[in-house]
């Protein structure tokens, strides 16, 4: 089942500020006309990672950064965290240019599939993370102990990291991102590879950070989590920012469907006037009619009654974020990410 990609009902975007204009103080993350391309040194072929990306994440909000594999999510995150250099354009974190290391003083970052020094213990690693982010030795020690306990790893703080499981390492990575209590948290696929309990813990941590006023930007393929956690969602496709809106705004644009669950199998022929918007789905013990246009609910119901069909339930169906995302991606020809040869 797909939902057609609707044009955004929002008005035309405001004029883009010039590259040299100072960053917007209301934004925790800002990019202007950001480009990243890679040149293969042997073939000299240029691959574009992101194109002309204008992104704004307001202070204190939780933003989901979505896109299929190869869309440019990780590239954007790596530029913001100083691991990649942008080819063109500007980016700021909390008002500081990303090229300046001090802009990362209030940044907490969890990379996708984080790797650690396996010769360190959990407490040693968190102390190192805290001190590198500017904490003093005493404070880093205290915070390391506190966060190790907070993510459920406090029973054995001297255990060497090579003895940690994957889920434990992911939780340690989150603790390392949070140990200095940053103002901005950037998480690359934080739920990837976690079991349902681990995902719940990460969700709770993100919600807790939102309560604290921390800005959170995270990429994820687990759309129900994004729908549950995010104030706004940014969808990036083929390196370009396709849409950025609240989950509610995205849903409003998608229209609403009505589902009529009816008893038994109904063989009644669909009326020509509703044929374009009404579909039938036969199941073993029931028939489900789906009406694509919610404004014609009464008309459809009247027809079902006239056909002596026993209507069991009438349920409004809202499109999920996943359906919206798929529709948007398919509309841009990126439905099959495997075919997309971009690197991310």
């Amino acid at each position, binding site marked *: 089942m797909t939902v057609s990609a609707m044009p955004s009902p929002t008005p035309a975007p405001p004029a883009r500020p010039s590259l040299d204009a100072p960053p917007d103080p209301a934004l925790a993350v800002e990019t202007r006309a950001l480009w990243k391309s890679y040149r293969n040194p042997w073939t000299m072929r240029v691959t574009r990672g992101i194109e002309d990306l204008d992104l704004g994440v307001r202070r204190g909000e939780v933003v989901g950064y979505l896109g299929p594999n190869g869309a440019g999510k990780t590239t954007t995150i790596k530029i913001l965290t100083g*691991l*990649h250099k942008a080819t063109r354009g500007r980016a700021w974190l909390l008002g500081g240019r990303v090229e300046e*290391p001090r802009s990362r*003083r209030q940044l907490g970052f969890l990379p996708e599939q984080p790797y650690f020094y396996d010769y360190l213990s959990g407490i040693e690693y968190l102390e190192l993370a805290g*001190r*590198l982010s500017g904490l003093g030795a005493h404070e880093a020690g205290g915070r390391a102990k506190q966060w190790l306990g907070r993510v459920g790893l406090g029973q054995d703080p001297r255990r060497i990291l090579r003895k940690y499981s994957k889920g434990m390492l992911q939780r340690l990575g989150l603790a*390392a991102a949070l140990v200095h209590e940053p103002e901005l948290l950037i998480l690359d696929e934080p739920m990837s590879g976690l079991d349902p309990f681990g995902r719940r813990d990460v969700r709770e941590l993100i919600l807790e950070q939102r309560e604290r006023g921390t800005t959170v930007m995270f990429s994820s393929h687990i759309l129900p989590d994004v729908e549950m956690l995010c104030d706004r969602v940014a969808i990036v496709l083929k390196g370009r920012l396709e849409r950025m809106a609240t989950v509610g705004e995205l849903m409003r644009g998608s229209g609403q469907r009505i589902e009529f669950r009816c008893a038994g199998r109904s063989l009644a022929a669909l009326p020509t006037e509703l044929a374009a918007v009404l579909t039938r789905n036969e199941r073993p013990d029931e028939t489900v009619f789906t009406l694509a246009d919610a404004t014609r609910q009464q008309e459809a119901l009247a027809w079902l009654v006239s056909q002596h069909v026993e209507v069991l339930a009438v349920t409004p169906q809202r499109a999920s974020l996943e359906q919206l995302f798929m529709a948007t991606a398919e509309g841009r020809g990126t439905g099959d990410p495997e075919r997309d040869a971009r690197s991310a």
Partner: protein
Amino acid sequence: MNAVWLIARNTYREATRDRVLLGMTIAGVVAMLGTQILQPLALGQGDRLTVDLGLTIISMLGLLAVLMVGTSLVAKEIERRTIFNLLSRPLPRPLYLVGKWAGLSAALWTVSGLLGLALCALLTVKGLGARTPAVLEAVYLAGLELSVVTAIAVMCSALSTPVLSALYTLGFYCVGQWSGDLRQFATGAPGALGTLLRVIADLVPNLPVFNMRTLAAGGFTTAPLHLGLASGYAVLYIGCVLALAAAAFESRDFK
């Protein structure tokens, strides 16, 4: 400087918790004791042999440690992506490289120091305690040499794979050991070849400056001026190599 200290301490911890250095230290002590077996073959030069081979063991094991640990120091961090956790913090990339160099250098100084002390102990047991000052000077110069080679290894490791880094570092070391011969050969070589050889001889580290094994074997100490000049040269060379490495590392993307 705090960041350099943190990275250096972590690198030192990594190197010393790795069994490679511990194994090398034990192997070094065993080899020094083993040199005593060769005493009857030394034709009365047994004491000289003990010092010469002892100092050679320190230099060679140090070089082996640089090739095994140093050349993968940064490349391994990039490959395993542990570098993401460091450079996404307010840590300037040049300081990261300096910290890596300082940490491994400190670990190698520790190994050289321990082996140097073992050699001094052996000499004292053999009643050759008078040669200790010369041996300590030679160990100090060997430590400087290892720090220079470590800087080259860090530079190669920041820009290449571990295997290629090891080859490049070994190449620099070998050519550096023969830099005097190369310079002499350049004077007799025709035109462009002579110029090229002179440039190469000037660019590679002048490692014979750090070699006083023969002098120490005879029980002679070197002039304080030599020690001062060698120290100054090492600091200058390491500074240039790390600056070059930092410039290239600054624009690197981490996949």
